[in-house]
């Protein structure tokens, strides 16, 4: 396994950084994708003289799209890449190896999007009707296809499907959640673009309220496909693995809450859209449209959080755990240790009271730091503060049973003990001296717990119902280790 230098984000969880940026980027990208579609529709309205204000709207909307979506969307897209490298270089490495031609294909569509986009922005008022429509169509087509390509990679991470059997790239790309995810995101893009359109119409649209109302009535038609969201959402849930589904459906309170937030926000927008479509004379003001757009952002945030969260304990399901350790590496590390090949020193080495704590800090860095902090968000010290020392030993040794969405511990008993001592030392206020422990009985008990649960992922234990069966074994192991200690 290749070791990379791991940076400490202080009290901030790495997931918060990439999650926050990811939600922002996805929202902007979806606005651009739906924007392309809505612009094509308004261009058709303009050409056929069905809507007198459509022309002015197109100019204003495209400018907003360029200033927000082009600029921030493009840079946050690159930022996503760099942040992914910062958080999990091994994960992005596997994805690049497997899908680089897909990414390269997506890039060709980016190029079309940028050229067509700027061509329209600069020259739309000098182009013939037919040319305007064509350039807009190129832009819309390219932006939707960029979704098509990236969707395959994102959904692969949760459901690699038949790729696992033969490593066929296309089997991984057209994986079980590819289509529901694509359809859902397309509808979401249309909804976001429609709400953004309502904001733009109010800010930069015609002066006359009647004209604005007419444009808004047209724009809200793009909210109508939201009626299909429950279908695509249910399809997506049905296509994902049962354990992942269980996290979202009550198994994990945070994920369930975020799912609820996403569904609730979408429902509110959907109900408002229904009223807007059905009631003649309905008007959406700039403030209301902004509020609805904020709700759409919340819905996106909820959805993206759940999509990222339900992959646990993996970053790529059945390929790589969230701490970027592969199953075969994990099995090897159980014997050799997870830090033995790590060439990077501790920056704060002198601040630890002994070598065991230094080992614990390295174990934390390699195995835990991607999802936890020491004392900040999802901080290990706080999470384990009420546990007894033996509870810490057992819960860490049997990590995948403690929380099935955590990966199995990837190290021998001395690394478990080192981590336990580190947490104890930090809980005690990091005193200058701290005794090293080398109690053979404690190490034997830890070995018993490690052996008992093995390297089977927690989700497998859940599936096979091993939890109950091994409970008896656990008692047996405890009894054995006690008698050995005696």
């Amino acid at each position, binding site marked *: 396994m290749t070791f990379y230098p791991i940076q400490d984000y202080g009290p901030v969880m790495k997931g918060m950084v990439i999650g926050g940026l990811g939600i922002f980027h996805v929202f902007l990208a979806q606005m651009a994708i739906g924007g392309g579609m809505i612009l094509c529709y308004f261009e058709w309205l303009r050409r056929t003289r069905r809507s007198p204000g459509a022309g002015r709207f197109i100019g204003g909307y495209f400018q907003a799209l360029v200033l927000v979506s082009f600029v921030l969307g493009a840079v946050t897209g690159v930022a996503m890449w760099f942040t992914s490298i910062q958080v999990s270089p091994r994960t992005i490495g596997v994805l690049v190896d497997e899908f680089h031609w897909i990414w390269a294909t997506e890039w060709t569509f980016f190029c079309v999007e940028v050229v067509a986009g700027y061509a329209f922005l600069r020259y739309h008022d000098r182009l013939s009707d037919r040319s305007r429509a064509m350039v807009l169509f190129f832009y819309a087509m390219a932006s939707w296809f960029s979704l098509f390509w990236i969707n395959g990679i994102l959904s692969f991470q949760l459901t690699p499907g038949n790729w696992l059997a033969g490593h066929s790239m*296309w089997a991984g790309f057209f994986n079980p959640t590819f289509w529901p995810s694509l359809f859902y995101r397309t509808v979401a893009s249309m909804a976001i673009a429609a709400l953004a359109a309502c904001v733009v119409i109010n800010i930069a649209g015609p002066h006359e309220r009647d004209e604005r109302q007419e444009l808004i009535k047209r724009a809200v038609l793009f909210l109508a496909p939201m009626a299909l969201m429950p279908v695509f959402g249910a399809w997506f849930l049905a296509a994902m693995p049962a354990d992942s589904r269980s996290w979202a459906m009550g198994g994990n309170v945070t994920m369930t809450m975020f799912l609820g937030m996403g569904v609730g926000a979408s429902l509110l927008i959907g109900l408002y859209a229904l009223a807007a479509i059905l009631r003649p004379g309905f008007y959406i003001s700039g403030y209301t449209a902004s509020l609805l757009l904020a709700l759409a952002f919340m819905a996106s945030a909820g959805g993206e959080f759940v999509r990222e969260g339900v992959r646990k304990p993996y970053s790529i399901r059945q390929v790589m755990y969230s701490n970027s350790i592969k199953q075969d590496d994990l099995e090897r590390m159980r014997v050799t240790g997870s830090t033995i090949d790590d060439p990077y020193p501790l*920056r704060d080495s002198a601040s630890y009271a002994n070598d065991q704590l230094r080992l614990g800090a390295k174990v934390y860095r390699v195995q835990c730091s991607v999802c936890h902090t020491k004392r900040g968000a999802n901080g290990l010290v706080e999470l384990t503060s009420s546990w007894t020392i033996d509870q810490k030993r057992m819960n860490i040794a049997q990590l995948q049973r403690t929380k099935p969405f955590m990966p199995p511990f990837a190290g021998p008993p001395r690394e478990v003990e080192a981590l336990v001592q580190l947490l104890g030392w930090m809980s005690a206020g990091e005193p200058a001296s701290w005794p090293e422990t080398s109690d053979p009985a404690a190490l034997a008990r830890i070995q018993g717990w490690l052996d008992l649960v093995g390297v089977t992922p927690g989700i497998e234990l859940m599936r096979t119902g091993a939890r109950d069966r091994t409970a008896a074994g656990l008692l047996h192991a405890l009894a054995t280790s006690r008698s050995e200690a005696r």
Partner: protein
Amino acid sequence: MDALFPFGFPWPTAMYLTFYVVTAAIYAVFMHYTLAGALVLAIGRLRVLAHRRASRGPEAETVSLGLLEHVVEDWLPVMLGMAITAGVAPLLFLQILYKQSFYTANLLLFHRFMLLLPALIVAYYMLYLQRSKKLHAWGPWPRAAAVIVVALCFGYTAWAWAENHLLSLHREDWGEFYGSGRWFFPDSELWPRLGYTITAAFATFALVVGWQLAWGRRGHDPGSLDLAARQLRLLALLGLFASAFEAILWYLWLETPAQAALRSILAMPYGVLVFLGIAVQTACWLPVNGGARLTPRRLVIATAGAVGTMLGAVVAREVRRLVALDLSALEESHRQAARVGGMAVFLTFFLVNALVIAACVWIVKRDIAPAR
């Protein structure tokens, strides 16, 4: 190292190297435009400020940017968008070729490297802002300040990339660098490298703007066009001579193995191509004393020279990296990467989308032609 780049490598490595070099050269065109363009615009704005301070009375208000700066001001946001987009492809092939070293350098520089992202966002918005009517109404100072910020942001980005690249070559320093928690990797090679990038940018920039002026010839005042052409000649020649000097300086700076590789059959023809391209471009620019001399024929020949220089320089840069890194250890991972499907789809869409882009440009050119 005993065959011309990239033919001495196993075919998967050679293929990815080729894709990398070609896409990096495409990216460099836009990057050079934005980097040199921002500096030209910043100097132009400062020149306007200086003239206004020197002039008194109503004529002070008439001092403004020349045609060259106007064109740059108009096109910089577009070119930045193109540069960011074009930069995605080489970034992708770079990760396949040199995964560990690239990722490690990114991780080691951390905030220092990641800061280029907000810098690009700031630069992007400043480019739009400095064209806004509101800022125009506030007088010349805010606009000058906005462009200076843009130039600084681009300069920072170039510096961060160069430092990242150099750190990726020095595996022996990674552990110590990480342990120290330092933010900067001072390496003396940085300055000739960065110097080459910045000076070479002016030559590419002059050529692209030359094409822009030639295409829009009928829309420009002949006097302004003549002046802009002479300014371009100056920029191009300065860029060409300075970049040739920087290239030699960089070569002398390198350690013996890298110098030997650059003199070998692996890279020597590309080195020759760099200087041949510089010579061709110089010959094309020297007689340009007015807009009439910016003929398509002259620009085509200069472009051929620039392509040679660009490709040669990217390959020379790559050969220096190949000497520093043990590529043979990565050949197996390249072989595995080459086994995955999708290349045919990429090549198909590359072709199709190149045609779509060409169609887009053709449609626009056709429609706006009468308006000239």
